[in-house]
């Protein structure tokens, strides 16, 4: 049983949620009182709030909007800032959090992405970065390309941890070099025009640790490395690896414990060699 500050058994606890009705409205804090139960996670707390639809003052309120998918920390959709630290709400156990922080649970949307509503953010920049660095193995074509080259055991073991990335955005939220990019839609714009303008804006800014790591994953794949030069071109383009400031928060907050800083340093090395080769040998691709 969790005790409160007076050493009594906890019967209820406060949840403060940073809420925002729409992308362009002001954010505000709303408090909720949740009856304590053992083994809650943050998702079940949010479900409880939706069920009550009453805040701590007893006023009726709209349910808090949030995103979730797998509920087992492999999809990244429910990522939010919990008591100041970015993590997945499905694997955030209330008992552990209350143990660290007396009686209060603070839930905020990630600060580096545009808020859609309450705890739901637009993470499209995360996926745009994966497009930019071509985070795939290029095998699409009109004919059978046959079996790919064999991968040796050692390389498989090195690649596996890098492949665990779920593009949740924790590394980006904690990165002091990754700043929020929010593009406002103009009234006379079509969906496509807005999308293009948004992507162009994303492309000018930092790709982030997750994308650098994916570039290294696919550059280590025997088939994937056929376009390794294109990936390094993207990584050394505007907003590329050069923006990294080596604060190393990414590796510290990664829920999958991916060796992100090792990938970044290896990408730095590959970029150094790639650029020197390109400068001295015009045939280098």
């Amino acid at each position, binding site marked *: 049983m969790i005790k409160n500050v007076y050493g009594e058994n906890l019967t209820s606890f406060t949840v403060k949620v940073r809420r925002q009705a729409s992308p362009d409205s002001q954010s505000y804090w709303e408090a909720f009182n949740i009856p304590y139960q053992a083994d809650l996670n943050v998702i079940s707390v949010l479900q409880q709030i939706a069920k009550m639809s009453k805040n701590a003052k007893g006023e009726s309120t709209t349910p808090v909007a949030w995103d979730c998918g797998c509920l087992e920390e492999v999809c990244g959709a429910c990522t939010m800032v919990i008591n*100041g*630290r970015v993590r997945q709400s499905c694997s955030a156990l209330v008992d552990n959090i209350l143990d660290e922080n007396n009686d209060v649970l603070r839930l905020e949307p990630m600060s580096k992405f545009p808020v859609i509503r309450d705890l739901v953010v637009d993470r499209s920049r995360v996926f745009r970065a994966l497009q930019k660095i071509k985070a795939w193995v290029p095998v699409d074509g009109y004919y059978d390309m046959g079996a790919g080259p064999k991968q040796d055991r050692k390389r498989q073991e090195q690649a596996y941890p890098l492949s665990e990335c779920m593009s949740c955005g924790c590394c980006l939220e*904690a990165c*002091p*070099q990754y*700043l929020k990019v929010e593009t406002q839609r103009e009234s006379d714009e079509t969906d496509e025009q807005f999308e293009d303008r948004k992507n162009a804006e994303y492309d*000018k800014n930092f790709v982030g640790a997750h994308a650098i790591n994916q570039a290294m994953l696919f550059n280590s794949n025997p088939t994937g490395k056929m376009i390794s030069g294109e990936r390094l071109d993207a990584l*050394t*383009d*505007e*907003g*590329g*690896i*050069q*923006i*990294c*400031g*080596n*604060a*190393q*928060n990414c*590796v*510290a*907050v990664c829920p999958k414990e991916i*060796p992100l*800083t*090792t990938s*970044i*340093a*290896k*990408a*730095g*090395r*590959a*970029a*150094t060699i790639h*650029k020197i080769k390109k400068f001295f040998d015009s045939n280098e691709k």
Partner: protein
Amino acid sequence: MDSSETNFFRKHEFLIRRLHSLSGLLPVGAYMIVHLLTNASILNGVESFQNLVYQIHSLGKILWIVEWGFIFLPLLFHAGFGVVIIMGSKSNTSQYSYVANWRYRMQRITGMVALLFIGFHVLHMHGWFHVGFWKTFAHAIGMAQFSPYNAASTAGEAMQSTILMPVFYFVGIAACVYHLANGVWTMGITWGVWTTPQAQKRATIACAGLGGFVMIVAISALVGFCTLDTDKAQEREIEMYQESVNVGRIIENEEKLSKPAQKKIKRERRRK
């Protein structure tokens, strides 16, 4: 839309950032180490330090090219672009108080301290520009205190002018040394020299060793100038100047002597 100037910076962002990283070590960091080692020679005596300064000034008329080309311009680029980098970031140590994150933040804080310190230090000793009216003005406000042919005595006097000066210099130098040592560490990651956490840990130890060594050199120099008997040093420097001019080691140039030393030499000549 964007002007062509910002487009240029955008297009060459990778190259500019890498040049910023490189310039921190070569020539700026390397120069700083040589500078501090030269200064620490004061502990060996006025003669050692003065001779090293003679050697530097033996470049004569091309000295300013070396000064601007290898020291001031790279330093201005490193500092100026450093400010741009700082403006494009947002520290979050209150939320994520990891050691590496503090090091990241300290790198930026010490960079700003170093910028202010070096700006003052160069004005204080060198005077920024060696052109007529500016030099007179700098002297008038108590700056441009260093005279190369009275190297030890003028540097000593500048350090001993107030008790705050050595304290200010200590803080400034400590910021520069941290910035260099931690900068070498981040440079190793940026260029891909040390990649794994284990290698980065070993590199941290090596960089801390480098920082510790440079700091000892710096403190030696600081103590040397703060405890110097400047009157005695000046006498010796005047002797050295006259002898060196006689044997042709240096070319006669009273501009490079301090004002009191110039007067003393004139008085001596009159007596003869």
